[in-house]
């Protein structure tokens, strides 16, 4: 199982890097899809089956399809030629790296003090999540529908062609 | 109308040695199996321009039913088809299109010229009509008639099936075939 974890993590990291560094948008999308599928694997490892499936449906099945769709529709395949100097790119890489180091350093402190909770295996199951979602988080759940509607309206408004 | 100008498209049916000698048993039976498979699954690309196209519709129809030979799946995409059926007059304007389609088809491919117009120009011996498609692409089987009856079209397909079934697997890589293609300026 540990092997599985490392393999998935490696896939994720490699794909994520590929997303950042590959120039072709279509390849980006495909790497990201692989990355997300690996992430679904992580969720299954964490015994969050429901989340894993929903993750695949939402991210790979809907969001990334949208990305791909837009890329196809607009024919964005031509990679934008990077006109930034190398300095900028190196700066970006260094910034990212430093950020990573800082975060690691910051979280390292907490690692020693984590308490071990008893591992309940049914946390990720449908019933548990459902119960929590519809009791504790009922209001945010309903609010999210409003968010969705506004996003939908916004998207349609943006996407509409000018009549004139 | 010399032999040279219209090269013989029919592959020489090699006396394939059965058994261990020569190609070996496996190769021979493989060849046979592939030949059988190909011949029973000829997907035509109907390049139907005129009258013969209507007769081809009749061939596809219930009375004649080309499906019996496994050829009812018409594919208008040249990549997916095995058999280019040229039906009807091919004008000089159409010539390059036909050639392009032939080139786009995936090997192995066969061509059948249905009807007088496609085979020789028929009654249209005019300035605008190509006098037989064998000037631009190699033709395997000619079907006479103007338009041919569906029976004749089916005959032509059976003839093609014989060719296909007997074709050696190596033919498409052979020198002879390369020469043929060179004659038509195709690589």
């Amino acid at each position, binding site marked *: 199982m540990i092997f599985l974890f490392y393999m998935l993590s490696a896939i994720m990291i490699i794909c994520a890097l590929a997303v950042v560094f590959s120039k072709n948008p279509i390849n980006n999308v495909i790497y990201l899809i692989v990355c997300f599928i690996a992430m679904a694997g992580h969720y299954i490892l964490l015994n969050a089956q429901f989340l894993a499936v929903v993750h695949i449906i939402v991210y790979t099945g809907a969001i990334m399809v949208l990305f791909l769709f837009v890329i196809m529709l607009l024919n964005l395949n031509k990679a934008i030629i990077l006109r930034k100097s190398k300095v900028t790119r190196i700066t970006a890489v260094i910034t990212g790296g430093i950020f990573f180091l800082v975060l690691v350093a910051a979280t390292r402190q907490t690692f020693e003090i984590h308490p071990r909770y008893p591992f309940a295996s049914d946390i990720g199951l449908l019933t548990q999540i459902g119960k929590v979602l519809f009791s504790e988080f009922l209001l945010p759940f309903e609010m999210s529908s409003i968010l969705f509607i506004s996003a939908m309206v916004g998207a349609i408004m943006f996407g509409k062609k000018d009549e004139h | 109308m010399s032999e040279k100008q219209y090269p013989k498209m029919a592959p020489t049916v090699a006396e394939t040695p059965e058994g261990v000698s020569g190609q070996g048993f496996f190769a021979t039976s493989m060849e046979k199996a592939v030949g059988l498979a190909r011949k029973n699954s000829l997907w035509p690309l109907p390049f139907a321009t005129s009258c013969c196209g209507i007769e081809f519709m009749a061939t596809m129809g219930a009375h004649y039913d080309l499906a019996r030979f496994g050829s009812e799946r018409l594919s208008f995409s040249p990549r997916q088809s095995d058999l280019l059926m040229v039906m009807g007059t091919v004008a000089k304007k159409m010539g390059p299109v036909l050639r392009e389609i032939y080139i786009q088809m995936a090997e192995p491919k066969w061509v059948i010229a249905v009807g007088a117009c496609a085979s020789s120009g028929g009654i249209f011996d005019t300035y*605008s*009509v190509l006098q037989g498609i064998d000037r631009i692409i190699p033709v395997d089987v000619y079907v006479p008639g103007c338009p041919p009856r569906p029976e004749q079209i089916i005959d032509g397909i059976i003839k093609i099936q014989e060719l296909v079934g007997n074709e050696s697997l190596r033919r498409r890589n052979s020198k002879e075939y390369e020469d043929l293609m060179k004659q038509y300026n195709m690589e």
Partner: protein
Amino acid sequence: MFEIIPERNQLVVKKLTDCFGESIERSEVLADMLCLTVKSAVIQEVIFFLHNDKELQFNFLTTLCGMHYPDREQLGVVYHLHSFENNHRIRIKTEVPLSDPKLSTITTIWPSANWQERETFEFYGIIFEGHPNLQRILNVDDMEGFPMRKDFPLEDQTRDDKDDSFFGR
């Protein structure tokens, strides 16, 4: 078939001669319909007049085709007009010299004349002035010559499965 209606024919001839006078060279009733020969300079106006006249109402261009008169060194265009309302058909002919075959277009009156004029251009080389897109339509673009002129050979010169000597050529 087409009934010849003398009154209508006379009416057409009268109206046209009133309006165009000398430009209407000849009018005769051939086998089935009235046939007018018109000077090429006024062809567009004549047809426009026939189309717009409230009484004649030639609202339909049946067909338009070219002609070649090799003995006269002339090219011709023949128009067939049809009035649905009166069920009356007439034929209008005009001629242009082979050396300068220019004619004004009638695509402004009927868009259906577009391709027919292109075809006529292609076959005979008659240039329709004012045509939106006067190009070859049926043959390959880089073809030379005008195939329907009498001196153009019909046969494909490259075929080899026929022996011309058998067919009296």
